[in-house]
């Protein structure tokens, strides 16, 4: 039994007032009469006939006490529980993280959780109000305050599986916040995670338990001359020894097969060497079906092996050399001979040197140009000042940074160039395309500034190099389901479209590229197609099942057959008692009136 308005119970001390009033009322009005002769006969007769007559006053008082008590109870709006019947505010929490995809006797834990939740909804009382929360990497309130059972059941059915890593425990604060919205509520949490409800009323339906499962915990590769060596680590979460066959694929071609024996809880690393180059991605698969299928495959994108070549004309600039050499995928060559006619490089950098003739191919990067060239005019040296990094795509991750320059070249910004760095009104760095060539410049000597000491310098150099050489950002070899894939690795791409492993295609607006791509629930290879400078481009990403979901999936208890509300006898609202109590109070008052008037 519980109360919807327990504050009304604070009126209970008023019952004492009734008793007090009776005590005061017991002061009979004293009257002198001639003789008690007749009255004694009347009273003795009454007492003889009805022994309880003496109690009559008390009966009236007891009836009034009971009536007052019941009125207070009615105000408190009590309810009684009706066994297994669910009622009141019911918060249903369904864990749909990756581990809930584990199978139990032919059905996934998520399917069982959904069926149990639907059964609970179906068997609940008429007055029930439902709130549904699904938990994957975050908790999401699917609906709140729904009284229509069919609607609630449909919404539970619509909860889809995910491969994400997630924890109900970590999202308990949100569940508690929802719980506290109600005066009283019951929480039903369906999860395979071992957890407690803390101070919330309700129960956790544990859907963990053991199963036969081996999963791929890690996949990586290393370059070994002209070949790759691929490492795959597998881990058993079974209680029994397991034998498995691991297949390795290059793109869609089977490359190798290996058998592995695992003791309970054991993990083993398998090496596949001599994998020749030429594949865009590698993937490994445990061929045997087990309790959790999703962790049986893992993908790996191989980095592009193409290197960009850079020719640096410089007398000596250790800062620039260091910055360039740290960029992976770049081959830097250096010379101070201005008379050569270079050819075949992706980028030419002129640091304080102007060549006698300019190359026909590749991009150009001028640092502190000492004289004018066909692309812009150099100017006199003037006093510098604070240099600000402007908001520009080529200044990504460093816009807003600033450093100081003592001397700058007072040169006019060419019309084709975008301003990147400014000192006052002077543009000291810019970039753009002129005559089909990508050209960038810096109108100051790096040695005359504290730029190299600033964290923005290597990033600026990286941005320049990738822009001028069209070098792609390599990115991670794989992501986990639910993780966001960053898409700002290449600038100025258009017509972007992501193809999911299941073939689904999603267009991505240019404005949203900076936010990355977060619809990564499916496991496998994602293909991003785009257009850049009228050329079609494509980049692939691998998304794998988070191994911690596999590791924690086979722990804890299994309560899939649990009868909700019966297991631990926790209370669930059933019938509201307010109306019956009010009716009883009215009957009681009528009876009291009869007792008083009739004097029975």
């Amino acid at each position, binding site marked *: 039994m519980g109360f919807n308005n327990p504050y009304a119970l604070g009126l209970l001390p008023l019952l004492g007032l009734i008793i007090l009033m009776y005590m005061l*009322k*017991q002061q*009979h*009005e*004293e*009257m*002198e*009469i*001639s*003789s*008690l*002769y*007749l*009255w*004694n*006969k*009347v*009273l003795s*007769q*009454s007492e003889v006939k009805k022994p309880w007559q003496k109690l*009559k*006053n008390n009966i009236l008082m007891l009836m009034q006490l009971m009536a007052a008590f019941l009125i207070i109870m009615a105000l408190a709006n009590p309810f009684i529980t009706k066994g297994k019947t669910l009622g009141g505010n019911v918060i249903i929490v369904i864990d749909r993280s990756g581990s809930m995809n584990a199978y139990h006797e032919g059905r996934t834990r998520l399917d069982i959780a959904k069926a149990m939740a639907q059964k609970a909804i179906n068997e609940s009382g008429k007055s029930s109000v439902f709130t549904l929360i699904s938990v994957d990497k975050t908790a999401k309130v699917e609906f709140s305050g729904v009284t229509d059972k069919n609607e609630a059941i449909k919404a539970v059915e619509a909860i889809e599986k995910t491969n994400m890593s997630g924890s109900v425990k970590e999202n308990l604060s949100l569940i508690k916040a929802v719980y506290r919205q109600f005066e009283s509520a019951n929480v039903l949490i369906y999860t395979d995670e071992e957890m407690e409800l803390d101070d919330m009323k309700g129960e956790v339906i544990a859907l963990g338990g053991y199963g036969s499962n081996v999963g791929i915990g890690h996949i990586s590769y290393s370059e070994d001359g002209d070949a790759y060596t691929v490492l795959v680590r597998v881990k058993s979460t079974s209680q029994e020894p397991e034998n498995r066959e691991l297949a390795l694929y290059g793109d869609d071609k089977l490359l190798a097969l290996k058998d592995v024996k695992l003791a309970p809880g054991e993990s083993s690393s398998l090496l596949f060497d001599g994998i020749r180059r030429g594949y865009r991605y590698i993937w490994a698969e445990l061929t045997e079906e087990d309790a959790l299928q999703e962790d049986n495959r893992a993908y790996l994108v191989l980095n592009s092996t193409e290197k960009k070549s850079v020719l640096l004309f410089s007398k000596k600039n250790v800062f620039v050399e260091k910055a360039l050499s740290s960029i992976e995928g770049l081959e830097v060559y250096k010379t101070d001979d201005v008379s050569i006619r270079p050819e075949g490089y992706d980028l030419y950098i002129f640091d304080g040197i102007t060549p006698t003739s300019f190359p026909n191919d590749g991009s150009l990067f001028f640092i502190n140009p000492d004289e004018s060239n066909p692309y812009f005019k150099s100017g006199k040296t003037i006093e510098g000042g604070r240099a600000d990094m402007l908001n520009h795509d080529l200044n990504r991750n460093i816009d807003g940074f600033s450093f100081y320059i003592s001397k700058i070249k007072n040169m006019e910004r060419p019309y084709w160039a975008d301003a990147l760095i400014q000192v006052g009104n002077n543009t000291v760095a810019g970039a753009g395309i002129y005559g089909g060539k990508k050209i960038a410049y810096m109108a100051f000597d790096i040695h005359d500034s504290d730029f190299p000491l600033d964290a923005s310098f290597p990033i600026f150099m990286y941005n320049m190099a990738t822009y001028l050489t069209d070098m792609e950002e390599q990115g991670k070899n794989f992501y986990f389901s639910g993780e966001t894939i960053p898409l700002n690795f290449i600038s100025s791409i258009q017509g972007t479209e992501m193809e999911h492993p299941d073939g689904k295609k999603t267009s991505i607006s240019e404005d949203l590229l900076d936010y990355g791509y977060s619809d990564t629930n499916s496991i496998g290879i994602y293909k991003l197609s785009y257009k850049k400078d009228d050329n079609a481009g494509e980049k692939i990403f691998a998304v794998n099942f988070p191994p911690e979901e596999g590791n924690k999936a086979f722990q804890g208890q299994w309560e899939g057959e649990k009868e909700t509300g019966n297991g631990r006898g926790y209370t669930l609202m059933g019938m509201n008692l307010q109306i019956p109590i009010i009716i009883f109070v009215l009957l009681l008052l009528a009876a009291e009136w009869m007792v*008083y*008037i*009739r*004097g*029975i």
Partner: protein
Amino acid sequence: MGNGIFEPEFLKRLERLSLNMEKLTGAGSGGLRKSKAKGSSVEFSDFREYSYGDDLRRVDWNAYGRFEKLFVKLFMEEREAMVNIFVDCSRSMDFGTPKKSVMGIQLAAAVAFLALNNMDRLCINLLKKDAMVSSNVLGGKGQFDICASFLDNVGFEGTTNMDKAIKLKKFGGRGLSLVISDFFIQGSLEDLMKYLMFYKQDIVFLHILSPQEMNPELHGQVRLKDSETGEMVDVDITPSINDKYQKTLKDFKASLKELTKKYGGTYVTISSADSLEKILFEDMIATQIIK
């Protein structure tokens, strides 16, 4: 209380009445009073002053000659009838609006007047606690003043043990015993009745109740205090209790009536709110106590 309590007109009406001794003594009892008109053939007993309505033939002309006043001769034979009036002087009688005591005294005076007026011998007995205060034996109309002054000084106190008190009375012979009381007394009246019967007394019970006793207008919870004993009782007045009271009162009156009837007596219930005229000229004539 003085003689003045009775209006002259009322007295005139009273004078036409007398105690109905035939009825009271019963038919064939051979009572001593054979005639209302006082006889002339028996032993002379006394004189009394002539009053209007007396038989002129019985005027003692010799006495008239000596005293120049008209006297009527009374004879011993006619004064054999002895009227005893017993008035309950307990405190309970001093209650009610109007008070039962007032009505009791008035009734006693009226009956005394009737008795004296009709040449009966009269004794008024005031019952107080276990004892009795008795007047002298009065006879003759002229002694009504004595009777009135005796009744004038009555106080109503304590409880009355009627049985014990009346038994102190030594009856000289046959007569009429008229008891005026509310009969709220302890103990049985049976013994008393037997005692009175033994002394050949004709018994009349004048049962006086106040309107408040006949219809108590009480409400709610009251603590009733007995005026005589000081005893207190808490009563929750309900319609049911009121019904029971009425039934008890009715039973009480019926038992008294039954008791008096059993011993050949007469019982009359009188409300202290009733007028004396109504009681005398209606109730008591109706029950043939007086005629």
